């Protein structure tokens, strides 16, 4: 017979074991790897140094890639907020049959393979794609979008939108439908109702959506790889190159850890900033 205090550990053992094997163990290996050094003649050199980190910090190339990743992720997040929040609001106001129909449409990017989705965008944005055919047909010049950061942002927004719509939609569901009427009866305009009553109440949903979108965009690999091409290098594609083309595993590991660190830092700071401001207000 197992004592009561041990039962929880016993029950969660399979999950913990899986987590340890699939997440903690590779993470630990990557962590150790990042403190080693790579030599093109002999491969990974034994011993631990900070050389790789020094190399990254002193080379403007890496700063540029991290910078590009940051602003692509930020633009994606911002666009997702601007599109996703009104979208969730409109969705929550729809009637029964249409609501589920449009919800499925919004979720549809998640149901399609990332590769198919990325090639789909290549077809639309490419030199002879839908967009350029359209521009030509109305007598405008062709634009070069594919293999630019703009294309990456467009494709990322498409994929990330569900992660913004769902948390916002959830917080909208918790709203008392009479609250907007109450604000109207007190003389608020439609915009004031939105700005002063609805928006503050969905802010927590908006924030968690933004954090998810930012973190996923910053570590996105397939979209930057396929829509951004070789020219628009982002952190995740850089890691891939270091591991598989340069075979410089320690450098790839170090970049991966820096990405993780920056991501965690962004989340922590946002959470801290917003907690002080909204925790008391929203009672969380």
């Amino acid at each position: 017979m197992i004592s009561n205090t041990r039962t929880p550990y016993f029950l969660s053992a399979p999950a913990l074991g899986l987590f340890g094997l699939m997440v903690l163990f590779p993470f630990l290996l990557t962590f150790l790897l990042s403190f080693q050094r790579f030599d093109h003649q002999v491969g990974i050199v034994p011993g631990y140094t900070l050389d790789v980190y020094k190399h990254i910090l002193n080379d403007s190339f890496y700063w540029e890639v991290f910078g590009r990743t940051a602003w692509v992720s930020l633009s994606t997040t911002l666009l997702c907020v601007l599109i996703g929040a009104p979208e969730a609001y409109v969705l929550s106001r729809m009637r029964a049959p249409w609501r589920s129909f449009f919800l499925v449409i919004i979720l549809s990017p998640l149901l399609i393979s990332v590769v198919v989705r990325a090639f789909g965008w290549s077809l639309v944005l490419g030199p002879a794609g839908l967009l350029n055919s359209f521009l030509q047909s109305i007598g405008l010049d062709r634009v070069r979008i594919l293999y630019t950061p703009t294309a990456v942002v467009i494709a990322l927004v498409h994929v990330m939108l569900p992660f913004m719509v769902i948390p916002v939609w959830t917080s909208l569901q918790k709203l008392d439908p009479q609250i907007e009427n109450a604000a109207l009866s007190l003389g608020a305009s439609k915009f004031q109702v939105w700005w002063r009553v609805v928006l503050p109440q969905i802010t927590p949903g908006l924030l968690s959506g933004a954090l998810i979108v930012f973190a996923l965009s910053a570590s996105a690999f397939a979209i930057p790889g396929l829509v951004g091409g070789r020219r628009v290098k982002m952190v995740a594609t850089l890691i891939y190159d270091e591991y598989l083309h340069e075979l410089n595993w320690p450098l790839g590991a170090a970049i991966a850890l820096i990405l993780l660190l920056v991501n965690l830092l962004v989340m922590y700071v946002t959470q801290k900033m917003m907690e002080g401001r909204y925790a008391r207000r929203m009672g969380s």
Partner: protein
Amino acid sequence: MNHTDYLSLQGLSKSYGKVTALSDFNLSVAQGEFISLLGPSGCGKTTTLQLLAGFVQPSAGDIFLNGKSITHLPPNERGLGIVFQSYALFPHMTVRENVSFGLEMRNMDPVERIERVNRILAMVQLDAYADRYPRDLSGGQRQRVALARAIVIEPPVLLLDEPLSNLDAKLREAMQFELRRIQRKLGTTTLMVTHDQAEALSISDRVVVMDSGRIQQIDAPHALYESSDSKFVSTFVGKTNFLSATVRARSLQLSTDLHVQTHEPIGHEGSKVTLSIRPEKLKFAQVSDTPKLKVQIKERFFLGNLWLYRVDSELGELEVSCINDGMAPKNESGVEHLTWDDAHFKVMSAPEALK
């Protein structure tokens, strides 16, 4: 239009597809009056309130406020104060911010605004809770915040949607008097929707009884209770006993040797009518009274201040209620005699009597 009517609803109707929620609603309200719309759920009382608030557009009819039509004004231009059943307080704002919201929307001078908010909070006895959030308040306190938020804008008309239904019985009673006190003090014309007849009777100047989207009767509470001439109103407002009778020359015949004297002629001799008498108008005969009807007590219920008896008689089952005077009640299955004053019988109106 009569210009002494402050708020007037004329021929107001609302249908959703084939369903008629409200038909031909006519009501004139004097300034400062407290009106209750009373009826079972689905009777159209909430629809009436939403039409007044402007959340729903009428299919036909007009609403006049102070002589001007507000029928097609959007809700945010009507300036009416509304207390919602769910209170609909802004959860992300403190009590003070909630109350202040309507004044901010009116761009009121901050000094005057703060002063006005403080005055109203003191009036509803919430000044000590001004900086709390709604979730930290009890049901009764939230109710008062909702009321304060609605009256602080000094609305021409205050609309209350089942304002007390979420409170427990004791608090509800206290809030009824509180609501009436504040309404009297401010003199705000008020319409309250309720399904609770005791609430409607206790605090209104007039009660509008509604059923199936139509007005059944509009009267002052006492008159409504004492002289309702429709079966629906007599059963919905209080309890009553229905008896069938045959019209005779100068009386109504209940049974072979039981007659009710009437002052005015009722109808053709020999025709059938329905009479109603309230349980508290029936009395158990004392030694000095003339017994009129022999009954056998079937059941008795103790209601604290009242005893309610269910009795069998040759006229069918009747309900009799007596004040609890501290004496022992009548025995169950005991045989007693009833007496009454013939004036307390009400003849139900003709179309109703046919039912």
